[in-house]
């Protein structure tokens, strides 16, 4: 048995049993972050913080929400919104955070793409991050079912129908997922379970993996410079903090992180108190009706780009294009054939590829919201084809990239 001595303080008592000093050193004071970064490097902490906000607001909503097709709509729109004191606050916080979290995820992803933070040992950071994106998407979708309004019902109908996989007509699979021929009680109950337990569990595990994947390659920096972290850490610990290229995660870097988080929170609560309506579709304030499709069905803004890749094609090709859009980002570290892990601005054609991709996704997003008619259909079709072409072209344009 390990040898324990009489503790001199509570700190010492805990330290003997839990090694809290070592834990603090490994996790915070001797976890090294490069100095050469900018505010975009704080998006990870903004995301972690927003996830915390979703968790807390979700807990309070959970105490009054009723996962029952007859009661769900009123439990949200009457009980929580009108009866529960500050119920409106939790709902608006939860809805706005669910929407804004995707804005930050997209910024976080595009930052990674721009600075090449998915290669040279950072592949698992990218892949675990993409898994988180998928988990957050599933979390957003399952949560969207819960108020049981018209958009909940019809989004549930349309998205679960995707699993029939077009001409394969796997209707049995669709009915199995729903537990009914159409979304009903079984459907609402199981998506409630997924939303409040199973998917959050996955997300927590994936966040652990994402952080763990960062540990060995460390955070990238603005110039993609390969830093000898041991050497720089030695300088820092020797008191030559000015010369060292790194700082400690806590409290040095964390204090800057939390400054960005503070600015984000001001923006966030501005939205919560004055513009929460952007995250609440008016059609979803009509109770679910299986015999009446709303005239125009569209997903939340963060799914519009991939929805628009599905929409302009006939059924089977549309599904294939949609599937392509869902998985292709996972393959980025392997489709980018260039060894350069530097900002896109120094990578020639890749720089153009990056901005064309950003603009194309914005165009897809805008077209996804508009009704599928006339010129909008055409623009949507072109943008969808451009999206696919960009990814097919990526290995070729990066293969012959000059070594920087």
């Amino acid at each position, binding site marked *: 048995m390990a040898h324990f001595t009489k503790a001199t303080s509570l700190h010492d008592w805990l330290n003997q049993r839990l090694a809290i000093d070592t834990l603090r050193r490994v996790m915070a004071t001797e976890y090294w972050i490069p100095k050469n970064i900018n505010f975009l490097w704080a998006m990870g902490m903004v995301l972690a913080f927003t996830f915390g906000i979703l968790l807390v607001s979700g807990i309070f909503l959970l105490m009054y929400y009723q996962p029952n097709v007859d009661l769900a709509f009123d439990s949200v729109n009457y009980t929580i919104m009108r009866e529960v004191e500050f119920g409106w606050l939790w709902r608006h916080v939860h809805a706005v955070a669910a929407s804004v979290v995707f804005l930050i995820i997209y910024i976080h992803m595009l930052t990674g793409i721009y600075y090449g933070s998915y290669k040279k040992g950072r592949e698992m950071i990218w892949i675990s991050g993409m898994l988180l994106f998928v988990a957050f998407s599933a979390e957003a979708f399952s949560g969207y079912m819960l108020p049981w309004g018209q958009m909940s019902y019809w989004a549930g109908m349309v998205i679960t129908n995707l699993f029939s996989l077009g001409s394969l007509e796997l209707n049995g699979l669709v009915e199995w997922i729903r537990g009914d021929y159409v979304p009903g009680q079984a459907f609402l109950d199981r998506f409630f379970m997924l939303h409040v337990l199973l998917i959050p569990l996955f997300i927590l595990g994936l966040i652990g993996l994402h952080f763990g994947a960062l540990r060995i390659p460390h955070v990238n920096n603005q110039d993609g410079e390969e830093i000898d972290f041991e050497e720089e850490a030695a300088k820092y610990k020797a008191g030559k903090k000015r010369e060292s290229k790194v700082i400690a995660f806590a409290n040095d870097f964390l204090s800057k992180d939390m400054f960005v988080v503070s600015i984000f929170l001001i923006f966030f609560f501005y939205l919560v108190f004055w513009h929460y309506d952007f995250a609440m579709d008016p059609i979803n304030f009509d109770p679910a009706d299986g015999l009446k499709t709303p005239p125009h069905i569209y997903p939340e803004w963060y799914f519009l780009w991939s929805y628009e890749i599905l929409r302009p094609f006939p059924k089977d090709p549309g599904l294939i294009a949609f599937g392509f859009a869902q998985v292709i980002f996972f393959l980025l570290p392997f489709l980018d054939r260039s060894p350069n892990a530097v900002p896109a601005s120094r990578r020639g054609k890749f720089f153009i590829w990056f901005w064309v991709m950003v603009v194309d996704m914005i165009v897809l997003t805008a077209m996804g919201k508009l009704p*599928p008619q006339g010129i909008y259909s055409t623009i949507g079709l072109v943008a969808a084809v451009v999206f696919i072409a960009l990814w097919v072209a990526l290995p070729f344009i990066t293969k012959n990239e000059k070594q920087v």
Partner: protein
Amino acid sequence: MENSRRGFMGKAFGAVAGVGAVGALYAMKKTWDPLPSVKAAGFTTVDLSAVEPNKLVIEKWRGKPIFILKKTPEMVAKQTKEETARDVIVDGEHYLVCIGLCTHLGCIPAYRSAKEDFKCACHGGEFDSSGINTKAPPPSPLVIPPFKIQGKSVVLGEEGPEYKKMKEAGVLA
């Protein structure tokens, strides 16, 4: 000796765990199946004698909307053979009876009586008055549910001789 014993224990554990995992997955799969009460939601009888021509009636069967459209003699006269093959003929009158869900992604198309066709607002698909897809993205006609003609009514969910004939002709969807 030691090694083979460990190897045996490993294999024994693997076998037990494998059987357990298959059993657990089977139970989980079955737990998600539609309940018997849902499956037995049963049969819906629709009386067609009160239906007005060129006016869409929507009934509910197994949670799905069922379109019933009585055709005017003019509509029947200008129909093609493929369209007529899908007609449910009750008491000499021609009806379209189909599941009112777009075969693209399951939205409910709206009937435009002036144009005598269906338009799906979700992704712009169109069907004629016999439920045959005329504009993409829907890849196939609106599905005809199992039906049986009973006097002036149809029973949805039961396969009558007329339904079986359509099934053989391959015009159900």
